[in-house]
């Protein structure tokens, strides 16, 4: 039955996260934007302490392979799976608080998700246990290189087996949380590298590189348009030796690139998460503008003839409709993921829609507030800068449109380049 009711557990979690976002994130949002790369230490410690138990529970070898970044999992619990939907509700609320701080939250992140998805029980124990104990830690994912972005199959970082070690050489950029993962904490980074360049996609494997491994250098931390609290690192690997059993999945070069496909499939879970984060920022901006207009006695008149709407009313309504449509597309992708139904098309749809919608919503919000919107006294201009990344990372809008196009046409990558 078609149903849009939140389960009580998710609704309760949403309320908790909303309170956390209001009290722990919003008050420091501006400060963390102005002081790029500073650590919001009290927030880190607060969130680390409140999520440690959850990660302890879920990092055991038998633990659920869930990349949920924060929040306590309800105990026991039978009935239909809601893991992805729940995760997206959490991310949406946190990003409503602050997207930069959300992205900087100490947690297993994308690196941990990769270990959860394909790691052996021994690897899960070795790499994930740390998120349930000690000081705040991060794990990152290194895919992009100076010479390749969306075309991950063109990766040129190499991994060569030498005795009991893999030797990694190459440069990675745009590693979200990379510095905090490998230089500031006892975390790790998952590095995509090729074991056989002649094999193309089939030769690409992922490797766990521990913090402070010799041969790995954090070259720089990027200065960005937005999400400034989140560090985006460039990392260089020069004869960086890691243990042989730090490879995730099989070392064999599969004939038809199954390993690469497996790696790409993790995007089906992470794209809705990016969409959810985008929507949180968009909602923050829309709510602010709505409240300000309401104080001026300007509330959209739903129900009247559309021809009689003012430009402001129409703008507010279209912002709201686009955000809501993005959210429903996101929930659908999560619902399918939770049912273990293939959702590659739907994941790309929600990401493409949300990235663009939120870019436009936040730009419009700045415009609608005039000089106030452009001023750094308010958070609107920051939200506009933070929003834009969602139209770019985890597959640009265009890459996602390409995936949608191939799916609806039934075309391979050779039939539609």
């Amino acid at each position, binding site marked *: 039955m078609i*149903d849009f009711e939140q389960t009580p557990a998710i609704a309760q979690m949403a309320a908790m996260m909303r309170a956390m976002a209001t009290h722990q994130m919003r008050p420091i949002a501006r400060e963390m934007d102005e002081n790029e790369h500073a650590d919001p230490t009290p927030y880190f410690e607060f969130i680390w302490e409140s999520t440690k138990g959850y990660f302890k529970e879920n990092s055991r070898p038998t633990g659920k392979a869930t990349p949920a970044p924060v929040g306590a999992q309800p105990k026991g619990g039978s009935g239909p799976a809601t893991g992805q939907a729940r995760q997206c509700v959490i991310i949406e609320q946190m990003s409503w608080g602050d997207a930069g701080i959300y992205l900087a939250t100490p947690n297993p992140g994308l690196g941990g998700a990769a270990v959860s998805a394909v790691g052996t029980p021994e690897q899960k124990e070795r790499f994930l246990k740390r998120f349930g104990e000690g000081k705040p830690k991060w794990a990152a994912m290194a895919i992009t290189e100076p010479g390749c972005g969306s075309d991950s199959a063109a990766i040129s970082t190499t991994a060569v087996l030498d005795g009991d070690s893999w030797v990694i050489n190459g440069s990675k950029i745009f590693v979200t949380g990379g510095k905090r993962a490998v230089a500031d904490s006892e975390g790790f980074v998952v590095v995509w590298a090729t074991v056989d360049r002649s094999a193309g996609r089939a030769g690409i494997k992922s490797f766990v590189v521990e913090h402070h491994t010799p041969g790995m250098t954090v070259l720089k931390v990027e200065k960005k348009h937005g999400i400034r609290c989140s560090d985006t690192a460039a990392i260089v690997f020069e004869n960086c030796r890691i243990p042989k059993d730090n490879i995730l999945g099989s070392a064999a070069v599969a004939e038809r690139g199954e390993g690469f496909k497996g790696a790409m499939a993790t995007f089906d879970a992470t794209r809705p998460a990016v969409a959810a984060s985008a929507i949180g920022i968009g909602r923050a901006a829309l709510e602010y503008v709505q409240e300000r207009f309401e104080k001026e006695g300007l509330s959209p008149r739903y129900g009247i*003839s559309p*021809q009689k709407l003012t430009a402001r009313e129409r703008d507010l309504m279209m912002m709201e409709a686009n955000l809501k*449509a993005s959210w*429903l597309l996101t929930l*659908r992708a999560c619902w399918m993921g939770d049912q273990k139904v293939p959702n590659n098309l739907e994941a790309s749809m929600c990401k493409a829609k949300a990235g663009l919608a939120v870019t436009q919503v936040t730009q419009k919000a700045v415009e609608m507030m005039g000089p106030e919107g452009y001023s750094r006294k308010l958070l609107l201009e920051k939200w506009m800068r933070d929003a834009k990344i969602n139209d770019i990372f985890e597959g640009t809008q265009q890459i996602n*449109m390409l995936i949608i*196009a191939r799916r609806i*046409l039934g075309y391979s990558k050779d039939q539609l*380049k």
Partner: protein
Amino acid sequence: MYSFDPTDEQKLIIQTARDFAAKHLRPLAHDSDEQSALPEGFLAASWELGLATGAIPESFGGAGMTRSAVTGALLLEELAYGDLPLAMAMLVPALVAYPVVDYGSNRQKTEILAALTAATFPRVTAALVEPSMDYDPADLGTRATLVDGAYVLSGRKCFVPLGTNAETFLVYAAEGGPGLDKVQAFLVPRGTPGFTVGSKEKNMGLRAVDTVELVLEDVRLPAHARLGESKGVDFARVMSYSRVAIAALGVGLARGAFDYARDYAKERKAFGEPIASRQAIAFILADMALEIDAARLLLWEAAWQLDKGNTATKETYLARMYADATALKVADNAVQVLGGHGYIRDNPVEGWLRHARGLSTFDGMATV
């Protein structure tokens, strides 16, 4: 608990409607548009299907199917996928049936629902839209005033579907100032003094459905002509159902246009390759598919709100606004994908563009 899966019963309704649309709507769409007339026997054939009035309670002679705005939305999408004007024509009885079921007095139900459960297509219709660029359902120009125990109606209506042959008209009029809460509905029999049924309108699209203009000059009606009599109707809710219906029709039209354009783009070759293999075309198609899904989910959520008992003015308004815009944009893009061929009336896409423009003009449709 989130779910995006129709029930088994809804899936059966979808399939029935889809089969009907493929057999009785799409093949007749072109000629009925060219001839500006319904195909012979069309209303009778559609009436036998029983979809438009299936949710009339058994106590009034109906089939007593579960009433649900979500189910209605699923059904209307399929019918409009076949052909929008023909779908609108077959749904006309529902414009009267459901306000009467929801708000009618016992006397009105007995009288009107008898015709709506009879063997032949009923001669009833509803009149809401007015011939003015200022038309606003929340501030109608047609007024009803209570004078000495009788209602006096004055004003003009247009887009009254199947008005040429209708015998009973459900006319919406404002009692007092602006506001959805001021609108009431009145049963006006043909032939009432002061009530003139005009000749058939000529519109850009939706030509197969005959629509007429009405003129009401001091039309005097007994108090029991007011739907629901002293209780009246909840017009805000009537409008929410209408918005869901129109949004569903828009989504169906858009899906039809998308499917056609996609298939064409895979067949049509330029420079030795199907045009769909170029991003310039493929991205247009991807955007169509994405926006249709977005519009459908907004529509489902709004309909779900109605089924929960909420009036959902805001949700249905946003859903309809989005669906109207999506239908127009998708139909326009379908013409664009077909290029010159899209502009020729041998292909259906130009017709869909003409129909889609009409969606935002129409008002007062009914879900079933």
